[in-house]
């Protein structure tokens, strides 16, 4: 494992996480959350947790995002904070 990669991805994960909470557009937040999940999945794959990474890629980055978008579609897209 190359630690530089690890550090870069971890930083990106934190940035995406904060971004998902900060963005006012909820669809954007959902997509950022998806990116967050995907980076997390990469991180776990680096650490050798392949099964967990696989699950996170399909569940976290895949289905969760669709569910978020579906729910936002049924409610309101703009958020005030």
């Amino acid at each position, binding site marked *: 494992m190359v*630690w530089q990669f*690890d*550090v870069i991805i*971890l930083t990106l*994960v*934190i940035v995406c*996480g*904060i971004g*998902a*909470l900060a963005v006012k557009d*909820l669809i954007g*937040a*959902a997509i950022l*959350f998806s990116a*967050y*999940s995907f980076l*997390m999945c990469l*991180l*776990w794959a680096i*650490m*050798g*947790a*392949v*099964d*967990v990474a696989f*699950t*996170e890629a399909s*569940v*976290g980055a895949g*289905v*969760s995002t669709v*569910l*978020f978008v*579906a*729910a*936002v579609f*049924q*409610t*309101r897209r703009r*958020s*005030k*904070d």
Partner: protein
Amino acid sequence: MEEITALLVSRYNYWAFIVLMMVGLYGMIAKNNLVKKIIGMNIFQTAIILFYVSIGAKKDATIPIIEHGHHGEEVVIKAVDYINPLPHVLMLTAIVVSVATLGVALALAIRVYRQYNTLEENEIKSQLSEE
């Protein structure tokens, strides 16, 4: 200098998990929008999963799929060669639980929207106090 980097790197995962947990917790408690709260909840849960996966990591080891001889040759299995599989198992469960919670949370959020026609908590509170 090298030692400090080594220390930082050796604990970097733990720091990241703490930061993510704080971010998630802040999102859950302080954000007004219900969908934002749910995103915070998910970040919080993934942070814990990151923590568990970090526990399972092992230096100079490979993924926990045992090499096995197909044609009868004996392969000696050594525990230090493979990453600890137990945290992975636990976290598979945790991921599934988190997506289940996500589904119920979004369903409740849609119900809340149906009732109050908004997802902002402070607007709902002001509607409630008007009653």
